[in-house]
């Protein structure tokens, strides 16, 4: 069962929040990208390779509303993650035992 929900709201191109989160990411963890954190999902970016989780156990979610207001819904995004809206965001928080925000 997943225990911790990590939430990252900073662009990986300007801040270390996402990198540090990934440094502390293990099999019990889920990641949700919100606000400027969603820029990490651009498929052709230098950061994209960090999301090629291979074990299938790690889950990455991205907040739909924040993708849309940044126009990223029209861009090629990394494929192995799931999109949630705000209601899904609330349910993710409910379904994990603890939440850690990185900023």
């Amino acid at each position, binding site marked *: 069962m997943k225990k911790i929900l990590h*939430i990252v*709201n*900073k662009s990986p191109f300007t801040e270390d929040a996402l990198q540090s989160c990934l440094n502390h990411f293990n099999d019990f963890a889920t990641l949700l990208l*919100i*606000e*400027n954190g969603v820029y990490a999902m651009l498929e052709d970016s230098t950061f994209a390779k960090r999301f090629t989780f291979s074990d299938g156990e790690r889950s990455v979610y991205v907040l739909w*509303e*924040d993708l849309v207001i940044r126009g990223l819904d029209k861009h090629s995004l990394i494929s192995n993650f799931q999109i949630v809206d*705000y*209601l899904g*965001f*609330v*349910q993710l*928080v*409910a379904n*994990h035992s*603890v*939440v850690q*925000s990185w*900023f």
Partner: protein
Amino acid sequence: MKFAILVNSGPLNYQSAYSALIFAQSAIKLEHSLFRVFFYLDGVYNANRFIAALNNENNLVQVWSKLAKDNKVDLVICITAGLRRGIRGINLASGFRISGLGELVEASVYADRLITFGS
């Protein structure tokens, strides 16, 4: 499920306070209960009723007040964080109250989840 929300950013410098507000509205929509929203650090600026939104900008302060009024949400700003930043009774928006840090700890203990919005 009972949620508590901690807001550590002001209404203007980052998106975080806005995210906290939408999260609160969404939790209510899903019929979860919101034990308390606690405003700390620069988050206390969300309670400044003298903030004026220009043109078509959202006025987050008013939306928080409306959330408190419509859904009886407990909005609490930290007294010492408020004093440091000039937020006091005189400029406190409706729906907010001022109290101590103990209320953040209490909210974290009584709610099933604490989620922090900051920058």
